[in-house]
Protein backbone atom coordinates (compact mmCIF):
# COMPACT_ATOMS: atom_id res chain seq x y z
CA UNK A 1 0.00 0.00 0.00
CA UNK A 2 3.05 2.20 0.39
CA UNK A 3 4.03 1.79 -3.25
CA UNK A 4 3.88 4.29 -6.05
CA UNK A 5 3.61 2.59 -9.45
CA UNK A 6 5.15 4.48 -12.36
CA UNK A 7 4.86 3.86 -16.09
CA UNK A 8 6.28 3.60 -18.65
CA UNK A 9 9.80 2.54 -17.71
CA UNK A 10 11.17 4.28 -20.80
CA UNK A 11 9.77 6.72 -23.33
CA UNK A 12 10.98 8.04 -26.66
CA UNK A 13 9.37 11.22 -27.99
CA UNK A 14 10.09 13.38 -30.99
CA UNK A 15 11.11 17.00 -30.46
CA UNK A 16 8.01 19.13 -30.12
CA UNK A 17 5.83 16.24 -29.00
CA UNK A 18 4.07 15.65 -25.68
CA UNK A 19 5.65 13.37 -23.09
CA UNK A 20 3.29 11.74 -20.60
CA UNK A 21 4.37 9.77 -17.54
CA UNK A 22 1.83 8.17 -15.24
CA UNK A 23 1.83 7.23 -11.58
CA UNK A 24 -0.69 5.44 -9.37
CA UNK A 25 -0.93 4.97 -5.62
CA UNK A 26 -3.10 3.17 -3.09
CA UNK A 27 -2.49 4.97 0.19
CA UNK A 28 -5.10 7.69 0.71
CA UNK A 29 -2.92 9.22 3.44
CA UNK A 30 -0.51 10.56 0.81
CA UNK A 31 -0.84 14.34 0.76
CA UNK A 32 1.99 15.64 -1.41
CA UNK A 33 3.05 14.47 -4.86
CA UNK A 34 6.34 15.78 -6.28
CA UNK A 35 8.10 14.95 -9.52
CA UNK A 36 11.89 14.81 -9.62
CA UNK A 37 14.11 15.13 -12.69
CA UNK A 38 17.53 13.50 -12.88
CA UNK A 39 20.15 14.16 -15.54
CA UNK A 40 23.01 11.68 -16.07
CA UNK A 41 25.71 12.09 -13.44
CA UNK A 42 23.54 14.29 -11.23
CA UNK A 43 21.27 13.75 -8.27
CA UNK A 44 17.50 14.13 -8.71
CA UNK A 45 16.08 17.64 -8.37
CA UNK A 46 12.53 18.76 -7.67
CA UNK A 47 10.74 19.67 -10.90
CA UNK A 48 7.14 20.33 -9.90
CA UNK A 49 4.78 19.21 -7.13
CA UNK A 50 1.08 19.15 -6.32
CA UNK A 51 -1.18 18.82 -3.28
CA UNK A 52 -4.39 16.74 -3.59
CA UNK A 53 -6.68 19.75 -3.18
CA UNK A 54 -6.06 20.81 -6.79
CA UNK A 55 -6.49 18.83 -10.00
CA UNK A 56 -3.79 20.47 -12.08
CA UNK A 57 -0.62 22.48 -11.68
CA UNK A 58 1.32 24.04 -14.52
CA UNK A 59 4.83 25.46 -14.56
CA UNK A 60 6.00 26.46 -18.01
CA UNK A 61 5.92 23.38 -20.26
CA UNK A 62 5.43 21.01 -17.32
CA UNK A 63 1.98 20.11 -16.00
CA UNK A 64 0.85 17.72 -13.29
CA UNK A 65 -2.66 16.32 -13.65
CA UNK A 66 -4.10 14.82 -10.48
CA UNK A 67 -7.11 12.52 -10.23
CA UNK A 68 -7.89 11.99 -6.56
CA UNK A 69 -10.76 9.54 -7.07
CA UNK A 70 -8.67 7.32 -9.36
CA UNK A 71 -5.58 7.77 -7.17
CA UNK A 72 -3.51 8.65 -10.20
CA UNK A 73 -1.32 11.55 -11.22
CA UNK A 74 0.66 12.26 -14.33
CA UNK A 75 3.37 14.53 -15.68
CA UNK A 76 2.87 16.13 -19.08
CA UNK A 77 5.78 17.78 -20.86
CA UNK A 78 4.55 19.95 -23.70
CA UNK A 79 6.76 20.80 -26.69
CA UNK A 80 9.35 18.29 -25.50
CA UNK A 81 12.96 19.27 -26.15
CA UNK A 82 16.19 17.23 -26.33
CA UNK A 83 17.26 19.02 -23.14
CA UNK A 84 14.33 17.35 -21.35
CA UNK A 85 16.00 13.96 -21.84
CA UNK A 86 16.42 12.68 -18.31
CA UNK A 87 15.01 10.20 -15.83
CA UNK A 88 11.81 11.30 -14.11
CA UNK A 89 10.61 10.03 -10.75
CA UNK A 90 7.19 10.54 -9.26
CA UNK A 91 6.90 10.41 -5.50
CA UNK A 92 4.39 10.65 -2.69
CA UNK A 93 4.60 11.82 0.89
CA UNK A 94 2.58 10.31 3.69
CA UNK A 95 0.77 12.80 5.93
CA UNK A 96 2.83 13.29 9.07
CA UNK A 97 5.84 11.40 7.77
CA UNK A 98 8.25 14.29 8.26
CA UNK A 99 9.32 14.32 4.67
CA UNK A 100 9.85 10.65 3.95
CA UNK A 101 9.06 10.25 0.23
CA UNK A 102 7.97 7.08 -1.53
CA UNK A 103 9.45 7.11 -5.05
CA UNK A 104 8.28 5.44 -8.23
CA UNK A 105 10.81 3.39 -10.16
CA UNK A 106 11.51 6.09 -12.70
CA UNK A 107 10.97 6.76 -16.40
CA UNK A 108 13.87 7.33 -18.75
CA UNK A 109 12.78 9.93 -21.31
CA UNK A 110 14.64 10.42 -24.58
CA UNK A 111 13.60 13.30 -26.81
CA UNK A 112 14.84 12.83 -30.38
CA UNK A 113 15.77 15.89 -32.43
Amino acid sequence: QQQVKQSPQSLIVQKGGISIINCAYENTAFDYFPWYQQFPGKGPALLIAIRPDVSEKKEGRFTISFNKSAKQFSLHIMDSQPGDSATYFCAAQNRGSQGNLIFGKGTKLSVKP
Partner: protein
Amino acid sequence: DVKVTQSSRYLVKRTGEKVFLECVQDMDHENMFWYRQDPGLGLRLIYFSYDVKMKEKGDIPEGYSVSREKKERFSLILESASTNQTSMYLCASSSPTSGAVTYEQYFGPGTRLTVT
Protein backbone atom coordinates in the same frame (compact mmCIF):
# COMPACT_ATOMS: atom_id res chain seq x y z
CA ASP B 1 22.68 28.21 -2.88
CA VAL B 2 21.51 24.90 -1.49
CA LYS B 3 24.21 22.28 -1.42
CA VAL B 4 24.54 18.61 -0.54
CA THR B 5 28.01 17.18 -1.04
CA GLN B 6 29.17 13.58 -1.03
CA SER B 7 32.73 12.64 -0.24
CA SER B 8 33.45 10.67 -3.42
CA ARG B 9 31.96 10.48 -6.90
CA TYR B 10 33.49 7.07 -7.62
CA LEU B 11 34.73 4.44 -5.22
CA VAL B 12 36.13 0.95 -5.77
CA LYS B 13 36.37 -1.38 -2.78
CA ARG B 14 37.09 -5.04 -2.22
CA THR B 15 34.67 -7.59 -0.81
CA GLY B 16 34.77 -7.59 2.99
CA GLU B 17 36.11 -4.05 3.36
CA LYS B 18 34.43 -1.57 5.66
CA VAL B 19 33.25 1.37 3.56
CA PHE B 20 32.31 4.87 4.70
CA LEU B 21 30.24 7.20 2.53
CA GLU B 22 30.03 10.75 3.81
CA CYS B 23 27.36 13.35 3.14
CA VAL B 24 27.35 17.00 4.21
CA GLN B 25 24.59 19.58 3.78
CA ASP B 26 24.91 23.31 4.34
CA MET B 27 21.20 24.15 4.66
CA ASP B 28 20.69 23.44 8.38
CA HIS B 29 18.16 20.74 7.44
CA GLU B 30 16.80 18.45 10.14
CA ASN B 31 16.19 15.47 7.87
CA MET B 32 18.79 13.47 5.99
CA PHE B 33 18.42 10.36 3.86
CA TRP B 34 20.50 7.67 2.18
CA TYR B 35 19.18 5.95 -0.97
CA ARG B 36 20.60 3.48 -3.40
CA GLN B 37 19.69 3.73 -7.06
CA ASP B 38 19.73 0.70 -9.34
CA PRO B 39 18.43 0.44 -12.92
CA GLY B 40 14.79 -0.56 -12.99
CA LEU B 41 14.46 -0.36 -9.20
CA GLY B 42 14.38 3.40 -8.75
CA LEU B 43 15.38 5.02 -5.48
CA ARG B 44 15.27 2.75 -2.48
CA LEU B 45 15.57 4.20 1.00
CA ILE B 46 18.29 2.68 3.16
CA TYR B 47 18.22 4.83 6.30
CA PHE B 48 17.03 8.26 7.32
CA SER B 49 17.53 10.61 10.23
CA TYR B 50 15.26 13.32 11.65
CA ASP B 51 17.77 14.70 14.11
CA VAL B 52 21.30 14.40 15.43
CA LYS B 53 22.06 10.93 16.82
CA MET B 54 18.69 9.72 15.60
CA LYS B 55 18.20 7.11 12.84
CA GLU B 56 15.40 5.11 11.33
CA LYS B 57 15.55 2.09 9.03
CA GLY B 58 14.27 2.49 5.52
CA ASP B 59 13.21 -0.22 3.11
CA ILE B 60 16.58 -1.94 2.64
CA PRO B 61 18.76 -1.44 5.75
CA GLU B 62 20.38 -4.89 5.77
CA GLY B 63 24.16 -4.70 5.48
CA TYR B 64 24.26 -0.98 6.22
CA SER B 65 24.49 1.28 9.25
CA VAL B 66 24.52 5.06 9.64
CA SER B 67 25.90 7.72 11.90
CA ARG B 68 24.76 11.27 12.54
CA GLU B 69 26.94 12.97 15.11
CA LYS B 70 26.43 16.49 13.75
CA LYS B 71 23.37 18.03 12.13
CA GLU B 72 25.09 18.69 8.83
CA ARG B 73 26.75 15.29 8.37
CA PHE B 74 25.20 11.88 7.73
CA SER B 75 27.44 8.88 7.12
CA LEU B 76 26.54 5.56 5.54
CA ILE B 77 28.63 2.57 6.58
CA LEU B 78 28.92 -0.74 4.81
CA GLU B 79 30.21 -2.99 7.56
CA SER B 80 31.52 -5.68 5.21
CA ALA B 81 31.10 -4.74 1.57
CA SER B 82 29.65 -7.34 -0.78
CA THR B 83 29.35 -7.39 -4.57
CA ASN B 84 25.56 -6.96 -4.36
CA GLN B 85 26.16 -3.57 -2.78
CA THR B 86 27.64 -2.27 -6.02
CA SER B 87 25.34 0.64 -6.77
CA MET B 88 24.83 4.40 -6.97
CA TYR B 89 24.36 5.88 -3.50
CA LEU B 90 22.49 9.14 -3.12
CA CYS B 91 22.27 11.35 -0.06
CA ALA B 92 19.47 13.88 0.43
CA SER B 93 18.36 16.41 3.02
CA SER B 94 15.10 18.23 3.66
CA SER B 95 13.21 20.55 5.94
CA PRO B 96 9.58 21.63 5.92
CA THR B 97 8.74 24.51 3.62
CA SER B 98 7.59 27.58 5.51
CA GLY B 99 3.88 27.64 6.20
CA ALA B 100 3.32 24.15 4.84
CA VAL B 101 4.06 20.56 5.58
CA THR B 102 5.75 19.64 2.33
CA TYR B 103 9.40 18.74 2.25
CA GLU B 104 11.57 19.28 -0.80
CA GLN B 105 14.46 16.85 -0.78
CA TYR B 106 17.80 18.14 -2.01
CA PHE B 107 20.09 15.49 -3.40
CA GLY B 108 23.83 15.20 -3.65
CA PRO B 109 25.50 14.13 -6.92
CA GLY B 110 25.83 10.52 -5.81
CA THR B 111 28.66 8.08 -5.19
CA ARG B 112 29.06 5.21 -7.62
CA LEU B 113 30.42 2.34 -5.55
CA THR B 114 31.89 -0.76 -7.13
CA VAL B 115 32.66 -3.73 -4.90
CA THR B 116 34.95 -6.31 -6.50
